[in-house]
């Protein structure tokens, strides 16, 4: 019998190694796996590379992980926003490496990783300073950049409903990066608001089939707040 439901945070976080590339779901504060990030803080892995659209706000969650010096490098599209005070501090003092990636290139690099595509050409960022060092090629009269896939060792994601096979649904715009990150990591760990019986999810409405998910932790935290 397949059972991907885990009973404890320690079980959910088991085996995340120092130096891991961690994909973190969420856009703004919606769809962020906050409980799993707290679990990662507790678990202790360090020297991490984090892939996340934003670089954390306030002093909790991702911001706390940065403040503790556990993140060597962050790959994101929008590091600066109201409240990204910890990122500003660690970046200014040279304690973190930053790779800025256009948001669509970032999500497509993970999609490619999940689909076995090592690299792809895109028109995004051609002629800009983010093209530095990248192979450029003209195809049918237009210029493109070669972008490499971005696989993760671990993905931490948030879902709405889950079953014991790891089938997942999402809620409204909390879907965001979560399904694509689920496909791109070797170890995908989901926190879910609701755990349902196998068979209870309408197959037409499952967004992430369980094949992509290794562990599910039940975290019924209620409603998110925008920070």
């Amino acid at each position, binding site marked *: 019998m397949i059972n991907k439901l885990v009973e404890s945070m320690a079980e959910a976080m088991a085996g995340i190694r120092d130096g891991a590339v961690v994909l973190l779901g969420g856009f703004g504060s919606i769809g962020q796996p906050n409980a799993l990030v707290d679990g990662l803080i507790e678990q202790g892995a360090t020297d991490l590379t984090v892939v996340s659209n934003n670089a954390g706000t306030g002093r909790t969650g991702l911001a706390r992980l940065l403040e503790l010096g556990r993140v060597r490098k962050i790959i994101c599209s929008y590091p600066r926003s109201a409240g990204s005070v910890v990122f500003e501090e660690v970046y200014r003092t040279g304690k973190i490496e930053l790779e800025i990636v256009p948001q669509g290139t970032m999500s497509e690099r993970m999609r490619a990783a999940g689909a076995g595509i090592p690299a792809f050409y895109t028109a995004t960022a051609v002629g800009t300073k983010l093209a530095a060092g990248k192979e450029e090629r003209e195809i049918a009269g237009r210029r493109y950049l070669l972008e490499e896939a971005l696989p993760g060792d671990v993905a931490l994601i948030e879902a709405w409903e889950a079953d014991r096979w790891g089938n997942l649904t999402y809620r409204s715009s909390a879907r965001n990066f979560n*399904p694509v990150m689920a496909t791109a990591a070797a170890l995908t760990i989901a926190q879910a608001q609701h755990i349902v019986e196998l068979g209870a999810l309408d197959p037409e409405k499952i*967004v992430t089939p369980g094949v992509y998910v290794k562990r599910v932790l039940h975290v019924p935290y209620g409603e998110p707040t925008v920070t």
Partner: protein
Amino acid sequence: MNALDACKPLTRTEMAARVARDIPEGWYVNLGIGAPLQIADYVPAECEVIFHSENGVLGMGPAPAPNEINRWLINAGKQYVTLRTGGSYMHHADSFALIRGGHLDLCVLGAFQVAENGDIANWSTSDNDTAPAVGGAMDLAAGTRQLWVLMEHLTKSGDSRLVHRCTYPVTALGAVKRVYTNLAVLDVTNEGFAIREMVPGLTLDVLQKVTDAPLRMAI
């Protein structure tokens, strides 16, 4: 800026309303965060222009009443929004495939500068800014079928935002098709900026005096 005393520049809301008038029913449109988001307020609800938000919302509606907020539904500017009837959700890779695959009819972005060759600079004000936030701007500028820019004609210090060549780091090359400012509406053509309309009281001579890039009237 005495040269402009004879005319009345548009306010920000008038600028948003002006852009809205030019968006035909049936178009799929992405509005950049900041001033462009206001354009949606001036498209009548019965007009089926479909707004896309890059965090995976197609058919974005206006802000909800305070007692009807869906806490899982925000736009790219991280404000609560609604989903209109017929709307749908998608994940980020699909949302940007929609953008990069040329499925949007229009994107309207704000900008620091637009050059007469259509280059746009809107994500970073200096080569020394080592942690600028690009977000989805480069994907939108390179991927949508048509890019319009909504911006003030001049900077706060009175410099022209319509330039011969961008001095700020560019977001995309040759991407802008039309610019809406508080003074004029201009097309970007192979021969540079062509004025479609100016606010009442403004003349080509006066507008040229405050604009770096050469201007001509559209035919």
